[in-house]
């Protein structure tokens, strides 16, 4: 069992929460881009080439303000620099993924990272194609959401308000699974304290990178010498 359809059947259930979350936050992105005066097809171009939720939302504002290119790039660097921390914990896992590696690195969003750290490829599926299919499904949901929002965002009669809570719930569930598996509360407690402190000190816009850097530094201090 290694045909692509059977890989998709195994990978799809893992990605369902991301399907709902990405459609829910992709639609407002597409709608905002069109409302800023840009053609609908810029939405899928951005979702294919950039594939970063917060980054793409911020880019709309930068385009609308006609920000200088250097400013745009520095902003993207600051918003996305957290990905370095993610990569550090996936170096081993991505060693044996073969031709999927480049795409897996490219498509490492918060949500795909969260799922990939929690899943193990079934014995009958190559890890590379299992992880790669999860990543590809996630990006396809994001592209789909942004196109629907750009083309039909204003026609959607019902409110999606609250459906993006699926991503919050996804992180809660994955955190609980991590705690069950490792039986070790300390790393999560460090993350929680750093995040609350960073939110209080730096506000919603800057908290993520501050919390992750602080959390990584404390982890190294308390666990850096243990086996």
């Amino acid at each position: 069992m290694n045909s692509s359809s059977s890989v998709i059947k195994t990978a799809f259930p893992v990605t369902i929460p991301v399907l709902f979350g990405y459609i829910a936050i992709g639609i407002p992105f597409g709608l905002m881009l069109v409302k800023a005066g840009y053609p609908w097809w810029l939405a899928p171009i951005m979702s294919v080439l950039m594939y970063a939720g917060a980054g793409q939302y911020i880019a709309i504002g930068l385009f609308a303000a006609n920000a200088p290119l250097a400013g745009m790039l520095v902003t993207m660097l600051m918003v996305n620099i957290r990905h370095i921390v993610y990569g550090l914990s996936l170096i081993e896992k991505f060693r044996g993924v073969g031709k999927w590696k480049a795409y897996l690195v490219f498509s490492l969003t918060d949500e795909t990272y969260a799922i990939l750290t929690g899943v193990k490829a079934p014995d009958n599926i190559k890890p590379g194609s299992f992880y790669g299919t999860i990543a590809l499904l996630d990006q396809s949901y994001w592209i789909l959401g942004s196109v629907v929002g750009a083309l039909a965002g204003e026609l959607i009669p019902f409110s999606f308000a609250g459906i993006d809570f699926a991503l919050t719930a996804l992180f809660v569930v994955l955190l609980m699974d991590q705690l069950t598996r490792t039986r070790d509360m300390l790393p999560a407690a460090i993350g929680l304290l750093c995040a609350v402190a960073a939110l209080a000190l730096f506000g919603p816009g800057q908290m993520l990178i501050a919390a992750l850097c602080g959390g990584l530094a404390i982890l190294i201090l308390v666990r850096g010498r243990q086996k």
Partner: protein
Amino acid sequence: MTPIAGTIAATVLMGLTILATRAFPFLLFSRRDPPRIIRFVEKYIPPMVMAVLVVYCLKDIRWTESPSGFREILAIALVILLHALKKNALLSIFGGTAFYMILINIWK
């Protein structure tokens, strides 16, 4: 407003910038092993990150104004309860999300 040709060029360059942040650790340690200190802590990074992301999802709540985060806390409590009892990720996520969507409609 940036003209459309400019947005496409900027999109390509911003995409490369984002890719650089994602690829950096893999390029840095493609030929040599990460330092011992990173190897010791790498398995502790995912739970730390997950806890940060949970808080990040709640960052825009205005705690000083009614209903000051009660709806989110109740919905997260339901997710935790469902997941502790049933251990079914999809049930926990969709049960919590459906409950939250109802809550924000009846409790404004």
